[in-house]
Structures are given as structure tokens and as C-alpha cells.
């Protein structure tokens, strides 16, 4: 076991990518950008960025070459929701760093500082193609001291799953939990959850408009701390949309009214009944993160959950990112299965790939920087032996910011120990 840990530590040491040029040659490249799909194409990467994409490109002198002949090449996958790097083991195994508790910091609770790029979950997911992820706080259920989460659980971040400069956006979205889920954090009432949000927005707006008066003690007392009110300024300035956990159609209607009233932007997470309001959601410019295989009425907020929802929303012009319905964190890698199921239910293949790459990047304000294979963007690239939405297809190589990551995880080490060890020693003694 100690040897295993040592091996892991060696593997996650940062790989320096100084002034490096790499060429990925001969693959079928799904750019998910304006260039569409290119056969037998070359991608030139310089210093972690995509320098050129096309067919018949010359390879710069001294470039490291990756042969992708006969392979499929896609942008890195973007996990749109989850807690990668914020949890190792969720149950009875120490703190879960995504969980917000208490009244002291709510909207200001930011998970970026807690992100652990050395978590074993990072390698497990990145070797299967996940290169970036939104990591999201959530309201914690009461702990031993009775402290519990809040309707506003704070700032989601975007991280890349590389080894250096890992936090891309520390304040990518403001997480809010409403509906049945939110009622748990508002004395059991749905309306109370909405009021909690409105009160926070009202206080933040008042604070933002009268900061000097506030400093001089000339404003009324606020429920929220200065850290919370400062965080909420980002919502009003347009850099940080609300990320709203919500499923029921009536709550979605209430959300469209609220964001119109406050002139703010929102993303829906969950959205089991969003397909019923596809046109309204498109008109309100709200994006949706959903699990396409989720088709059971888990509670009365999702009575109308159905397959095919992703296609209905995308056809109506809604930007949709696909999440995994079973495990959003340990198996963030399974968004390819979600995308494949969305295709089964009628979504076009290209649209499904976009929904796990460029669409989530755009939703989290990263659209000009990542999510597609376009000149100038970060070189997050996955080389696949076969259709990435097929369940038997696992990446041959993954690049994050132009760096080829070691295709090793704690899981592959365990596999090799128990499946492929040539040792004659009893199993417990093997490397």
C-alpha cells in the first residue's frame, strides 16, 4: 500500500511544458468549432495553446509528434457539475469540501481554495478524457453540531485537471438551491427559499449602491456578511451567473421572472421539467445542465422527467451541458455515456459532443478559452481509438494545456497489481 502511494506521488509531480511544440498528426479531428470535422488533420500546439489546425500542415522543426492516424480526436471533456478535488470519499470519511454550512459565509463561500489537484479522483477522470470541470459547492445537511447549509451555498469554480495553474475561474457561478431541495434550508418551505434568495440579492444591491454609507455605518444592518455581499456583486456585474438547483416547471417559471426583475443571468442544474418550458428558457437565455438518462419521477418536483429532454431543449435554442445521472464526481468520466444516451434519444451526435465540451465551457464563461479545437484556445485534446460515445472506447492519450498527461491512476495501478502482476509471491505481497 505504501508503495502504491509512493508511486502515485511520483506520477502527479508537475510536468513542465516550457516553450514546447507538439503536433498531433493524421487523426479525424472533431473540432467542435467552425472548422467542423477534418479527416487526416494536423493540430499544432505551441506552449499549451492550439497554434494551427488543418489538413496538409507542415510540422515545425523540433516538434514532438503524436501519431493519431486511424484515431478520433476531440476537445477535452468538460464536467459541468460535481465536486472533483473537493471530496475523496463522501460518506463517513472526513470533511467534504464542497459542503457549505453555517450562516457566517454563504454566498461568499468559495470552493476554489479547497481544490486538491492531487486527489485520486483527478487522475481517474482525466485519463478518460475529462480535462476541465466546474466544481460546485452545495448546502450541507445538518452535521453533529446541527450546523447546516444555506439556500446560497457560494461560488463554483472552474478548474483544469492538469498539474499547474489549475484554477481557471474561482468565481464562475453563484450556487443557489431552490424548489424541494431548497426548502430543506429554508425551514421546510419552498417560498422561504425564494425569499432567502431575494433578500440576499436586495441586500447585495443596496450594499453595492451605498458602499460608502455602509462603511460609515449609515445603512441598516444586513443579514449577510460583507464577504457574501461582495461575492453577490459579481452576480450583478454579469461575470457570475446564478447556478440554480431546480427541477419543477413552476420553479423554472419563477426563476425566469426573478432574473428579469433583477437583470441577472442564470444556469439551471437538474431541470427535470425544463423540457416543458423549452421556448421560455431559450427566450430568457438560461442554460441548462441536465442528466439525459434521468427519466424517473424521483419526487414531486420531477414528476415529468423524461428521456429526450436534451434534444427538445437544444432544438429550442437552449444551451445544454450534459452531466452523468449516477455519479457526477467519482465518475464524471461517464458524461460520454450520458451523451451517447442523448444520441439514442434523438440528439445529433455532433450536438451531443458539443454538450460535453464547448457548451459547458461557454456556460461557465470559458467559451473563448477552452471547449473546442480552435486556434488560440487551450490545447485540451483527447485521442480516442474509436467513437468516444461508445462505451467500449477509452482514450489512448489526453492532453491538458498541451501537456500529455500520464495515463495512470490509482485504479490502473490496482488493476496492474491484481491482474497483471508477474510476481510469484502470494497476492498480498505483490507490487
Amino acid at each position, binding site marked *: 500500500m505504501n508503495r502504491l502511494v509512493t508511486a502515485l506521488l511520483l506520477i502527479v509531480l508537475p510536468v513542465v511544458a516550457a516553450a514546447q511544440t507538439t503536433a498531433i498528426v493524421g487523426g479525424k479531428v472533431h473540432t467542435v468549432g467552425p472548422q467542423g470535422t477534418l479527416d487526416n488533420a494536423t493540430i499544432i500546439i505551441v506552449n499549451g495553446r492550439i497554434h494551427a489546425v488543418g489538413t496538409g500542415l507542415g510540422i515545425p522543426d523540433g516538434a514532438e509528434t503524436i501519431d493519431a492516424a486511424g484515431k478520433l480526436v476531440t476537445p477535452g471533456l468538460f464536467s459541468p457539475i460535481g465536486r472533483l478535488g473537493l471530496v475523496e470519499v*463522501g460518506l463517513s470519511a472526513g470533511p467534504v469540501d464542497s459542503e457549505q454550512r453555517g450562516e457566517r459565509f454563504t454566498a461568499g463561500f468559495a470552493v476554489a481554495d479547497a481544490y486538491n489537484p492531487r486527489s485520486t*479522483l483527478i487522475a481517474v477522470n482525466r485519463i478518460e478524457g475529462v480535462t476541465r470541470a466546474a466544481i460546485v459547492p452545495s448546502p450541507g445537511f445538518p452535521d453533529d453540531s446541527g450546523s447546516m447549509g444555506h439556500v446560497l451555498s457560494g461560488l463554483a469554480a472552474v478548474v483544469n485537471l492538469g498539474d499547474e495553474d489549475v484554477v481557471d475561474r474561482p468565481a464562475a457561478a453563484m450556487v443557489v438551491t431552490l424548489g424541494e431541495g431548497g426548502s430543506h434550508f429554508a425551514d421546510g418551505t419552498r417560498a422561504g427559499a425564494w425569499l432567502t434568495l431575494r433578500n440576499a440579492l436586495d441586500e447585495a444591491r443596496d450594499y453595492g449602491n451605498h458602499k460608502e454609507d455602509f462603511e460609515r455605518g449609515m445603512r441598516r444592518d444586513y443579514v449577510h456578511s460583507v464577504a457574501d455581499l461582495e461575492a453577490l456583486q459579481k452576480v450583478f456585474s454579469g461575470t457570475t451567473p446564478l447556478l440554480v438547483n431546480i427541477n419543477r416547471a413552476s420553479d423554472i417559471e419563477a426563476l425566469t421572472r426573478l432574473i428579469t426583475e433583477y437583470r441577472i443571468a442564470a444556469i439551471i442544474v437538474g431541470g427535470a421539467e425544463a423540457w416543458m418550458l423549452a421556448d421560455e428558457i431559450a427566450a430568457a437565455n438560461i442554460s441548462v445542465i441536465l442528466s439525459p438518462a434521468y427519466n424517473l419521477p424521483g*419526487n414531486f418536483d420531477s414528476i415529468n422527467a423524461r428521456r429526450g429532454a436534451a434534444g427538445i431543449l437544444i432544438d429550442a435554442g437552449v444551451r445544454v451541458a450534459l452531466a452523468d445521472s449516477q*455519479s457526477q464526481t*467519482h465518475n464524471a468520466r461517464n458524461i460520454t455515456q450520458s451523451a451517447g444516451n442523448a444520441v439514442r434519444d434523438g440528439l445529433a451526435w455532433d450536438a451531443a459532443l458539443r454538450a460535453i465540451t464547448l457548451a459547458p465551457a461557454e456556460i461557465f464563461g470559458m467559451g473563448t478559452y477552452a471547449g473546442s479545437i480552435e486556434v488560440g484556445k487551450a490545447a485540451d485534446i483527447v485521442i480516442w481509438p474509436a467513437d468516444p460515445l461508445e*462505451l*467500449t472506447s477509452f482514450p489512448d492519450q489526453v492532453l491538458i494545456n498541451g501537456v500529455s498527461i500520464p495515463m495512470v491512476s490509482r485504479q*490502473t495501478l490496482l488493476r496492474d497489481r491484481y491482474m497483471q502482476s508477474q510476481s510469484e509471491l502470494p497476492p498480498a505481497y505483490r507490487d
Partner: protein
Amino acid sequence: MKNKIAALAGIATMALLAVACDKSAEDAADAAFASRYKALPGTKTLITGATVLTGAGERLEDADLLIDDGRIVEVGTDLNADGADVVDAAGKWVTPGIIDVHSHLGVYPSPGTESHSDGNEATAPVTAEVWAEHSVWPQDPGFVTALAGGVTSMQILPGSANLIGGRGVTLKNVPGRNVMDMKFPGAPHSLKMACGENPKRVYGGRGQAPGTRMGNVAGYRAAWIEAADYRDKLAAAENGEGEAPTRDLRLETLAGVLDGEILVHNHCYRADEMSVMLDIAREFGYKVSAFHHAVEAYKIPDLLAEADTCAAMWADWWGFKMEAYDGIRENVAIVDQADACAIIHSDSGLGIQVLNQETAKVMGAAAKARGEVARHR
């Protein structure tokens, strides 16, 4: 109305408990809760030109399949059947109905309200007396979505809060007004047992035993000691030696396991704990039919093969608790490679709809690690 039913049930239970334990009472229970499933009248149907995976390890190309009266009559090529409805399955695949050996449909139905939470009798660590079928709500929409995913039979188990959680039941997910309409004719009952974190968390959290893994093991062993004593007294009484013990639903189920009539399905993640459970089975002379979840089965495939115990596993779930932390994609492949019995299960109303996909992931992982795996395997 509800109260009246509860009261009547109470009286009936007391009456049953008052009956001294003899075989006729058990037989009456078997009759009362027997399957009432009946196949609908079928049309003679010929499926032609399919690729057939028989489920028994064969792959047949361009094969025909004749069905009549709810039964498979013949599988072969160029079959003729006068008057049969013909289904042209050229270019299609035909498989047996998928069986999920681990489901909680009906006992944890949708919507998952508190009032629907009927899968864990978490009021004592050993509740061998409860039967999952008496919690099953036939209107669970999950039965229908599972059918759409190709599942035609499933084992419904009690949850894993308890060391011994009660009897499981095998159902066909057909429409029924009560569970007996769905019960798979002739399928044996199972006994759900659970290792590890769940029982010790549920009861230890209340300051009650078991609070540790050693507490878990003491709990199983104490139950089997009681069961063996009950069985021995019963056998003695049948030979005219001594009084039969008063009928006890809890011990009746456990004695059923010792007699080999009820099959043990044991929720257990860690390799070391599965190994201990096999030791306990040897101590008391019962067999573990399958370990469920068995996230670390790949560490002990030889022990599983030797004990003729199956591992029912997920394709890739891992890490949601400590005992699931060592999960790997090749778990199923390694168990299968050792010629131990490997099963893919769902334990999920969503997963049960895509068991074919879960199997594909397993095949993909196996192929990547050790080369191509045949689909019919």
C-alpha cells in the same frame, strides 16, 4: 380503513405466532404467498434472421426462434412455422430477457418520498422475519422503465441497513395488482445480509450494537447459533424427541438458509470481509450464493471460485464510501478470468435500464486490459 387493515393484519400475525411450529404452518404460509403469475395467452411467433446471443455462451448468426404458448419451442436456422406471426429480425440482435439480481424497485419506489421508504426494516440489526415482497408497490413506474431497458426478471432485496435484512423475492416486472401476480413461479427466496459500513453506521450511530466490523460478525454468528438450535429442536421434534419450538418467523427464515432452501445474497464490498463471511458460512454450514457490490472481488477471485460463490458487481461505481474506494473498471473481468461467477447488477432504478450498457463498459475495460472479449461470454 387503513387502521382496520393494520388491526386485522395484527390479529392474523398473532394467530400465526401462537401456532406451535410445525411444517403445516410453514406450508400454509408458502401457499398464502405463492406466485399467482400466469403468462398471458401467447401467439405463435417466429423471429427470423437474427443474431442470437443465447445467454448460455453461444452466439448464433442468421438464426430463427420459434415461440409458442409463452415458451421457446426451437432455436435454429430456416425454421418453418405454419400460422405463426413472423418478426423479421434481420440485422437485429436477440437476447434473453435481462435479469437484474439486485434491485429495490417496489420497496424504494418512485416518487422517493419518505412515505415510500419501505426497503430497510432498520429497527433491529437482525430482521430475518421480514419479506421484501410485503413492501413491494406494484405501481412503481420503475418496473415499466426497466422493462423498456430489456429487463424481464429481477430480484428485489431488502436494503443493507441490517446485518440480516430479511427475505428477497424474484419478480417478473409484469403489471400486477399485487406482488403475487408478479412473483416468479418456483424461484427460491433469498436472505439479504450486509457487511461493513452500513449496519455499523446505522446501529453504532444509535449507540447500539453493532458499532464495529467485529460487532457485525458477532451479530451474524449469534443469529446463526440461534437458528441452528431452532433447526435442531425442530428436527428432534419431528423424530418424536421433545417439544417443537414455538413458531418464530425470524428463525424460520434462518433455518431455511441452513437447510439450503433459502439462498444467501450478501452485500459486501471489501475482499477481507467477503473472506470472513465465507469463513462464517463454513462455520455454520451454509452457502453464500452471491456477494453483492463486491467492489474488491478482483482481489479474491480464487476464493470466490473455490466457494462457488458469485460476485454481483457494478461496472464502474466506486469511491462513494471507504469500502468502495478500491473499485476498478476491470473488477468483473478479473473475476470472470478466474472462472469465478461474475454478474453485473444495477442496485438502481436508472442503472437497471441500461444493464446492456454497463456490460459494454465491462467488455471495453476487459478488452483494453487483456484483449478482445467475446460478446456471448
